[in-house]
Each structure stands twice: as C-alpha cells, then as structure tokens.
C-alpha cells in the first residue's frame, strides 16, 4: 500500500515536471515573438520552480524503497526527470535572449509566427461571464478553440485543472489557433457584440 502511494507521488511530480517544461517552451517562444521581457521573466521564474520540483522528484524516486533488481526501471525515471530539466534550461536560454535586450532578428519572428498557433494573455474583467465558473463549466476550448496554458493569480502560477474556479483579475495565458483569439477576448473581457 505504501508503495502505491509513493508511486502516485512520483507519477504526479513527473507529470508536473513535463507540463512545466513544455509550458516554459511555449512561453519562451512567445516572449521572443512579442519581444516581451515580462514573459521572459516568467520563464525564468518557472525555472526556479522547476529546480525545486526536480529535487523533490529525485528524492521521491530515491526514497521509494525499490529492490536492487528494479534499479534499472528507476534509473529510467531519474533520467526522464533530467530531460525535463534540460528542456527547461533550453527554454530559459531563449528567454535570456529577450532579457539581454537583443532585438530578435526578423527571421526569428517569422519562424515563430509561421506556426498557426498563437499565444495570448488576457486578464479576466469584472464583466466576464467566466467569473465564478470552473474551467470545466467554462468550456473555453469548445467555445473558442483556445486552451488555457496557465493562470496567474497574484504572484502564483495555477495549473488549469478542470476544477479551478476563475476569479476577477486572473491573468490567463492561452494558446490555440489564431481564429479563436477574438472569441476568447470577448469571453474574458466580457464584451458581447451588442454591448459595444
């Protein structure tokens, strides 16, 4: 029973490491595209968070009480953790470019834009119909074709789990296809066409 519990912690932490490293990549490319030092700083903040999470992950693998013959299986896990860390480092290096004030070359923005996907950040206004709804109820991907990457509330990062309830002032970072951006804006800012 003890073992199942420690397994669950390992699995959850690994999933979080993987998600966070990929989120950092998305944000890093977006920071280059928008030449946004703010987004770039967010990447570096996540890097700190990753470091702690990675240590936590390694400790939970090492303390899971595996048998000698299982050591290979656990080595594989340790290495997966290392890989998420490497990806996070690569994202941080891209963010560095922005923070050093290097004007991103025209080629860079073209390359990043070429992907049809876009990233946008919007703050939930007091008129938004999303307030007080959980993400499950809000059905944002169904309505707009965009999905929430992460929510920033106060100084904290919140992962967009279905049960998270949206509040006024939440900053949403969303990714998706360019067509959906306007629909998402209406939803988050609470402007319907007849109000304008």
């Amino acid at each position, binding site marked *: 029973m003890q073992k199942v519990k420690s397994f669950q912690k390992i699995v959850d932490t690994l999933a979080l490491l993987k998600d966070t490293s990929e989120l950092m990549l998305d944000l890093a490319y977006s920071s280059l595209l928008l030449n946004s030092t703010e987004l770039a700083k967010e990447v570096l903040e996540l890097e700190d968070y990753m470091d702690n999470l990675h240590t936590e992950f390694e400790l939970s693998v090492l303390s899971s009480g595996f048998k000698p013959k299982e050591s290979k299986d656990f080595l594989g896990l340790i290495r997966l953790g290392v890989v998420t860390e490497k990806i996070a480092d690569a994202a941080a290096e891209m963010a560095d470019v922005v923070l050093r004030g290097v004007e*991103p070359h025209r080629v860079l923005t073209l390359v990043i834009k070429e992907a049809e996907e876009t990233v946008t950040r919007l703050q939930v206004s007091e008129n938004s119909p999303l307030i007080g709804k959980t993400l499950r109820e809000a059905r944002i991907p169904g309505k707009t074709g965009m999905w929430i990457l992460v929510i920033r509330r106060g100084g904290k990062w919140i992962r967009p789990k279905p049960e998270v309830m949206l509040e006024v002032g939440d900053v949403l970072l969303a990714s998706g296809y360019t067509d959906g951006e306007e629909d998402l804006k209406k939803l988050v800012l609470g402007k319907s066409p007849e109000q304008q």
Partner: protein
Amino acid sequence: MPRLEKIEYKPVSIRDVLTEMKDLSELMIDLAYAAALFNSKELAEDVHELEERVDTLAYLLDMNAMVAARDAEDAESLVAVSAVASAADKISDAAADIAAIVLKDIGVHPLIREAFEKVEEHLARTKIQPVSILVHKKIGELELAARIGVDIIAIRRGINWIIDPEDEETVEAEDVIFVRGAPSGVKAIMGLAGGTIKTFED
C-alpha cells in the same frame, strides 16, 4: 562510435532551416515521450535518426549565419537566431536522451508507466476501429488541429511506421495513431477513433 560525416557549407535559407529545427525538436519531444510511455523501440529509433538531422541543420544554420553577417549590427541581431537554434538543438538532444532510455533497455518501471499514461493528457495512442468516421479520410481533410486542437504525430500500420504523416496520408481501420494536443481534443480523438463519437460537433 557512429561515423560522423563532414558537413560542407551550402547556401540555405536561415529561415527554412530554423523552422525545420523548431518543428523537428518539438515533434521529437512528443515522439520520445511516446516511445518511453508506450515502450516502443521503433519510435525511439526514429527519434534517434531525427536527432542526427537536427545536428546537421545546426551546423548549416551557424555557417550560413556567419556568412550572412556583414557588420557588427548584423552580428548583434543574428546572434539571437543562433541562440535559439542552439536551444532547439538542446531540446532535440534531450529527446534523444529519452530515446536512449528505451533503446538501451533501461526502461521505466511498468507500474509507473501505466500510471503516467493515465495522467498524461497531451499524448495518447489509440486504435482506429473499422466503424470510426476517420477511416479512409485524408489527414489534410480531417483538419484535426483546427477542429479539436490535436495532431497525429505518428501512425503504426502493421509493422510499418509513418512518422509526422503528410496531409495526403489516409487513416485506415486497424491503424494505431499517436496523437498530441489539448486534453479535450485528445479525449475527442479517442472517441472518434473508437467509433463512439460520430461527429466533430459537440
């Protein structure tokens, strides 16, 4: 020791090379995790091959960036291109590290693999049932990315693998598809492939 070939300068579009490096590195991460998650050596070998391609591209990009810089100002702005290319190269190396876990039989504990498969919301594999509406459809016409926010990153058909399938490729019954994307879309594609969902409308 793998035999490394000399890479000679040839003029290429920096934009095209960087686009390919960015796309490949992202595809490789997904393929590599899928290889580890589903314990697939075939996928891992593909990641390994793609890694060599990215290495070659990285050299070509650097050489072309060097030639393109005419003055200090050019150098200052091209260094950003070079830094991003180097980051994409690192990402592809990281993906190759995951592939190595599978190829060198280190593996990931099976119980953890199973549990991870359940919480991993961005990657999935599923079999196309004969009753699925996806059967005989071209990937291009399905427009999965625009409709439900997922991509098919690989198809296993019998013993054959199709990596990063083209728009012209068709989906057939009994194919095993590997997909990545938004969690809601991944759920939808499982239903579409299994035949329990018959339409894209929700």
